[in-house]
């Protein structure tokens, strides 16, 4: 069906202008501001000891959160697509719950569970365990906000593939783990990679939840996004954008991986 040329180019024009204003220019401004005082200032900002410490903490929290949520995501997706049982819908909604919760509230729940007024406070102080305003709290908050990512990517995929192949493998005597490794995993690998990538993106950039549980101790409980906030609030804009540019590079890499995954999926389908 042939569309009116004017309509077509107007709509394409609107889309391009909208995305340029809302997405491309914000990316550019980060890079331009970061380099506005030259490379020397740029490298000084990203190689600052506090920035490196923040990078380190972000890396730890991201790796732990992604590994935990990937194992969970595979388990939950397998459970929800290979079996039928009562309460499946409720379980599925509960897994999606963290999506509907504000990041600030996600941080707050851990303050209320492990913080000063929690039921566990006496036990934690008696054993000299620190969770809130320390690394464990940051990791927990990161796990919470990225909780459903892997599962959400896998469920539609595994649903569409059905369970015939797994059933056949069972009949031939394969164990659960072998079936997973040899039958399921090759089928879902691209979806899994994309889920992991999305989870990584969110974990690395989480701000609200981590901000609540971190306590903002420089060099100790600051992640990269929190470090950016501090620099920005100190009117040290160039340094803030310099550190932000690292995260922008990661974001672009993530988009590239996403597109490769989609392309592979289309090729296989």
């Amino acid at each position, binding site marked *: *069906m042939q569309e009116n040329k004017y309509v077509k180019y107007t*709509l*394409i024009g*609107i*889309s391009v202008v909208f*995305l340029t*204003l809302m*997405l491309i*220019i914000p990316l550019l*401004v980060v890079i331009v*501001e970061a380099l506005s005082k030259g490379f020397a200032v740029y490298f000084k900002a990203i190689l600052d000891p506090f920035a490196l410490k923040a990078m380190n903490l972000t890396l730890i929290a991201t790796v732990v959160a992604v590994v935990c949520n990937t194992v969970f995501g595979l*388990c*939950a997706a*397998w*459970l929800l697509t*290979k*079996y039928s049982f009562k309460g499946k819908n409720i379980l599925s909604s*509960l897994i999606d*719950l963290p999506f509907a*919760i*504000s*990041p*600030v*509230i996600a941080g*707050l*729940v851990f*303050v*209320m*569970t492990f913080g*000063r*007024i929690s039921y566990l406070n006496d036990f934690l102080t008696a054993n000299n365990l620190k969770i809130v305003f320390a690394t464990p709290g940051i990791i927990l908050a990161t796990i*919470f906000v990225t*909780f459903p990512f892997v599962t959400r990517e896998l469920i539609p995929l595994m649903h569409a593939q059905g369970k015939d192949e797994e*059933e056949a493998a*069972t009949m031939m005597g394969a164990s*659960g*783990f072998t*079936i997973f490794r040899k039958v399921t995993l090759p089928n879902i690998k691209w979806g899994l990679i994309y889920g992991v990538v*999305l989870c990584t993106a969110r974990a*690395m*950039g*989480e*701000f*609200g939840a981590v*901000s609540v549980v971190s306590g903002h101790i420089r060099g100790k409980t600051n992640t990269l996004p*929190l470090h*950016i*906030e501090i620099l*920005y609030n100190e009117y040290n804009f160039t340094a803030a954008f310099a550190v*932000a540019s690292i*995260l*922008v590079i*990661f*974001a*672009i890499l*993530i*988009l*590239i991986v*996403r*597109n490769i995954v989609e392309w592979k999926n289309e090729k296989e389908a």
Partner: protein
Amino acid sequence: MAKVTRVIPGFRFTMGFTLFYLTLIVLIPLASLILKGGGIGFGKFLQTVLDPRVLHSYLVSFGCAFFAAIINSIFGIILAWVLVRYEFSCKKIIDGLIDLPFALPTAVAGIALTSLYSENGWIGRFFYAIGIESSFSLVGITIALIFIGIPFVTRNIQPILKDLDTQYEEASMMLGANRWTTFRRVIFPEILPSLLTGFGLAFARGVGEYGSVVFIAGNTPMKTEIAPLMIMSKLEQYDYYGATAIALVLLILSFLILFSINLIQWRMSRLKGI
């Protein structure tokens, strides 16, 4: 009840692990929020959440998120339409870019947008020239919420539009309807359920959003304070109960939105069934 036999092994293990992890990470923390929040007492609870400053912050969060979700719905339909129906150069790049708000950390988006839309910013200077304060204002908050909500509507409509059979459109055209009527009467009803899902997700995300908004909002009391910020500032004063009370109201309102959207969708699918 008949015993269900499950062919594929691993049911007990996956069920056990899923429930254990869900309880540990999500259910226990949420329960302690609710239980501890209850400790505040009803009178104090009402006093906290009915404080004019808090009420105003709910209004700002919900109002701006609603408005941003409406704008994203309009552009989302256009974007999905352009990406599914038209062929043009750099279409792949545009398609790939749409997920950027998912990939870019909210704090980075926040400082980038603030710099762009402030009075001397690349885009802000045009807004200020025509008298619109595009930063440290409700407009600024809405801009940030539009940014983070872009992918939801587009990504929900795209697959539906792709699978839509064009023969209904052709039939509608044959019967003499023009393109706009065809869109309104034939295509729009088909994409409406997924549009609502996308709208609901963008709205809910916007209501809770913190990182991208705090920088551009300016955070003036009774003007541009958002609800998550009120939780944050209560926490900074070590008023844990106050923070929890505000959080509980925000949680309930967000769930109500998602629930009512599900309800509308359910009603619509039932109407369609008849």
